[in-house]
């Protein structure tokens, strides 16, 4: 009696396509790296501006944050790539890749940083102001360093999510790792080997990033808690 699906496990298929998979992985890392860096900077910058209550900027930042946090990333990606050109702005696959990740991660990080800044004990800032520091300087020397450290765990969490969400680019058929695997399956029909292989790769990289995050958090931890 033939076995259920006639599936013959053949790991050699991974070796055959190592070239393509490697290129796919590089693309994943590229859009993730730019997306993560951008999300970090955007989050810190806009989070600071929001905390400092800069008049018009604060409202605009709120709109940006709420739009990108309350809509699915997948739909944002479709919109940026397929719909935006109708308004005249056409972006390539790579650009949509890192830009969508940056905008999504940045929105969440604005909230994370803002929460961190606002969690800084009011007493520290008051003492600083009492010593004659202007508002901006007080922020730079007290709120920023302490608040950023408080925000660190949630920020690294989002950055790792940015990396995982690079897989969403199959929506626009950008050939990062997952899309490359899907295209190989389209021709070879080897679902098990392909998805198992890239699953292991993602898990491994996420695990490494988590280790890195813990290390950074440990290094920058505020002694005695905040």
């Amino acid at each position, binding site marked *: 009696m033939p076995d259920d699906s006639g599936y013959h496990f053949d790991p050699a298929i991974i070796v055959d396509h190592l070239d393509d998979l490697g290129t796919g992985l590089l693309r994943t890392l590229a859009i993730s790296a730019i997306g993560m860096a951008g999300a970090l900077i955007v989050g810190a910058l806009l989070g600071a501006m929001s905390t400092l209550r800069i008049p018009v900027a604060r409202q605009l930042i709120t709109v940006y944050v709420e739009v990108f946090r309350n809509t699915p990333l997948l739909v944002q990606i479709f919109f940026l790539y397929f719909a935006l050109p109708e308004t005249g702005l056409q972006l390539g696959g790579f650009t949509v890749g890192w830009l969508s990740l940056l905008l999504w991660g940045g929105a969440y990080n604005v909230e994370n940083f803002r929460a961190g800044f606002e969690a800084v004990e009011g007493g520290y800032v008051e003492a600083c102001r009492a010593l004659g520091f202007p508002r901006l300087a007080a922020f730079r020397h007290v709120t920023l360093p302490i608040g950023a450290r408080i925000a660190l765990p949630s920020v690294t969490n989002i950055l790792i999510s940015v990396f995982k969400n690079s897989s969403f680019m*199959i929506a626009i058929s950008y050939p990062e790792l997952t899309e490359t695997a899907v295209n190989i399956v389209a021709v070879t029909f080897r679902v098990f080997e392909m*998805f198992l292989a890239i699953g292991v790769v993602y898990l491994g990289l996420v695990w490494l990033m988590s280790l890195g995050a813990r290390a950074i958090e440990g290094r920058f931890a505020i002694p005695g808690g905040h």
Partner: protein
Amino acid sequence: MPAWVGPVADYLAGGLRETALLALVSIAASLLVGILLGALLTLPGKPVRAVVRAYVEIWRGLPIIITLFLIFFVLPIIGVRVNTFIAAAIGLSLWGSANVAEVVRGAVQSVPRGQAEAAAALGFSWTGRMRHVLLPQAARRALPPLIGLVVNLTQQTSLAAVIGLVDILEASQRSIERLTLSGGSTHAVPILGAVLAVFFVICLPLTMLSRWYERRLH
């Protein structure tokens, strides 16, 4: 109103029902399983914690798309075949429960140690401590991030489109497909814009609820 709007709106409405159903099922399963696992993560015994930790790391570490592909295309190889909706629900719930477990663990462990120690000194068992002292306090701290996870899960249901579930995103894609191929314009901006708007309207109140509750906590 242009002629194309009617059929598209109908099709999207059907997709929205699927999205809502999938979201509710996944949220319920994630909360139930996640809270249980989160509590287990605070157990003193190492073996249980190790198993749960492995579950959490795997389903949080894998991109959801990979999880969905594994359940939908790979499981049938060993004879486990579920339909598209159940595959999507399982995939989302694995991710959701892993994240809920982490939130619950963090919340329980953020309750000042003194509370647990005092309860132990008073003679409460582990279950008693959890039930009467730790969980009620942890629940308050866990609520804002949990609401955030609920919002997230609602949005992640759109991923079910990659295995062909006709949720609101897939419905919008098929509508755009039909309109594009019949030679007219794609109408991608209004259609995708409508999908974004629907999610926004559903998720914003929940996000604001979480923010409001967080302020109440402090």
